[in-house]
């Protein structure tokens, strides 16, 4: 499989008010691959992830510098001329804690489509089933699509959130520590799912768990204090890291 870039960050910096959380990040995300971001708490990996769907625009005093070029459109998605809503229409997100809406399972998945003005029952039905199948949840919920999403278990809720993110046919999905609130069995289901999904969509995932990054990702970036210390193929980063700090982190000597 050829390796083409899906997105490239060019000298990306990010500021919360006066605090610089990201420092000149240059990184290229490969299409239909899993890119994992690791690093200790507060190192900027989640901040980096949330640049890709302009989540930071929801809060005041946040400022981007540099560029994130989305390919092949070749648009800078953090440019002030680009509407953040347009970016979110193409890049969806799965959060740290499962956050389904207090609505039915069906309505949770259909929500992104309704936002896009799709309200035809047949179109919604089809898309909801397809997304739930892709998120490996269909068999568990097919008989209670109109039941409350909150009655599902934590792992099911997170897969529901993945189905919700898939329903809008995104080009890229951002995962922000998607398994940190889940038990090991639910975690392994989500991991399998992510590996399967990469045939369809580009995946960027932040994780606390280095084994998880090693298991599911093709490329891994190590962040420390707002800087990208090392970025290479996952195999190389975990077996032969080029930078000393990376080695110390993955061997558990700090972080």
């Amino acid at each position, binding site marked *: 499989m050829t390796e083409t870039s899906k997105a490239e960050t060019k000298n990306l910096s990010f500021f919360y008010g006066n605090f610089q959380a990201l420092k000149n990040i240059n990184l290229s995300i490969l299409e239909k691959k899993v890119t994992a971001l690791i690093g200790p708490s507060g190192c900027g990996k989640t901040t980096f992830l949330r640049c890709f769907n302009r989540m930071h625009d*929801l809060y*005041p005093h946040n400022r981007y510098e540099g560029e994130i070029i989305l390919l092949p459109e070749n648009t800078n998605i953090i440019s002030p001329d680009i509407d953040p*809503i347009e970016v979110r229409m193409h890049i969806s997100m799965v*959060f740290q804690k499962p956050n389904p809406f*207090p609505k039915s399972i069906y309505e949770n998945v259909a*929500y992104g489509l309704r*936002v896009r003005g799709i309200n035809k029952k047949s179109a919604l039905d089809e898309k909801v089933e397809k997304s739930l199948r892709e998120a490996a949840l269909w068999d568990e919920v097919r008989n209670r699509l109109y039941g409350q999403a*909150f009655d599902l278990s934590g792992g099911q809720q997170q897969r529901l959130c993945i189905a*919700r993110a898939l329903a809008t046919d995104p080009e890229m999905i951002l995962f922000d520590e998607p398994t940190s609130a889940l038990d090991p069995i639910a975690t392994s289901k989500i991991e399998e799912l992510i590996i399967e999904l990469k045939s369809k969509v580009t995946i960027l995932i932040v994780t606390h768990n280095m084994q998880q990054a090693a298991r599911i990702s093709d490329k891994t970036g190590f962040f420390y204090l707002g800087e990208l210390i090392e970025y290479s193929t996952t195999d190389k980063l975990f077996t032969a890291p080029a930078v000393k700090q990376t080695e110390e982190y993955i061997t558990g000597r700090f972080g």
Partner: protein
Amino acid sequence: MSDIKKRIRYNKFWNYLFLIIGLLSTLVGLLLLCVLMIDLALDGASRLNYQFLTSYPSRFPEEAGILSAWVGSFLVLLVTALAAIPLGVAAGIYLEEYGRKNWLTDIIEINTANLAGVPSIVYGLLALGLFVNFFKFGESILTGGLTLALLILPMVIMATRESIRAIPNSIREASYALGATKWQTVQWHIIPYSTGGILTGVIIGISRAIGETAPIITIGALTFIAFLPAPPLTPEFPFLSFQWLMDPFTVMPIQMFNWVSRPQQAFQQNAAAAGIVLMLMTLIMNGLAIYIRYRFRKKIKW
């Protein structure tokens, strides 16, 4: 060993002492309410009948009733709700979801909190100047309803803001992350999830408004009304009439006040009977508020 037992006994003594003090304090409120209800019931129960509910006030106490008063109260509160709910909810949503936090929203916030504590008669004065004299609405149901709407507006705004704040931010982020605009998020999430809290605030506001006398007297509501407002439905086109909005009116507490201030014993009984009806109305509304809160809490968990 025995020292420790002594100590425990001593500690427990204070524990039980507070238990008794707390229980007595609780009972004072409850008992007073019971005594009040029983007193009203003893005085007024004999007057509580169908005739009482369907008669106009009269010079003869045994013929007098509260028809114009409860219809007036109902219509005034209808106007109050129709005015206060959209205004208060829209303002609350704006302040929580749209307004950026700056000195202006801070001032608005402090003012809303202060408005809730303004004595109701001051609202009456404001309404007299604004609605009666400036807009020339007259001493009408419209004026009464809008006055009470002003009175409960801060409560509605605060209830709205509180229940919006209870919605976790993760829900908003989930909605925005799917490409929703602010209005789509408000329409599909913020409003539905905060409806329980908003309704509770509205009902509690209205049950306060139903007993308000001072502002209604200030705007010049009459104390003796022996007719009903114009009916809202008419036999001729366009079948709907809003004439009732402009009609003079009275409300329950004014009717009570009128009767209490008369020398005859029989009118005192009428006042007590009207008091029972008023209290029942308040109790029903508060019960409804509790029920709605319970229903919505059960439906939505985070």
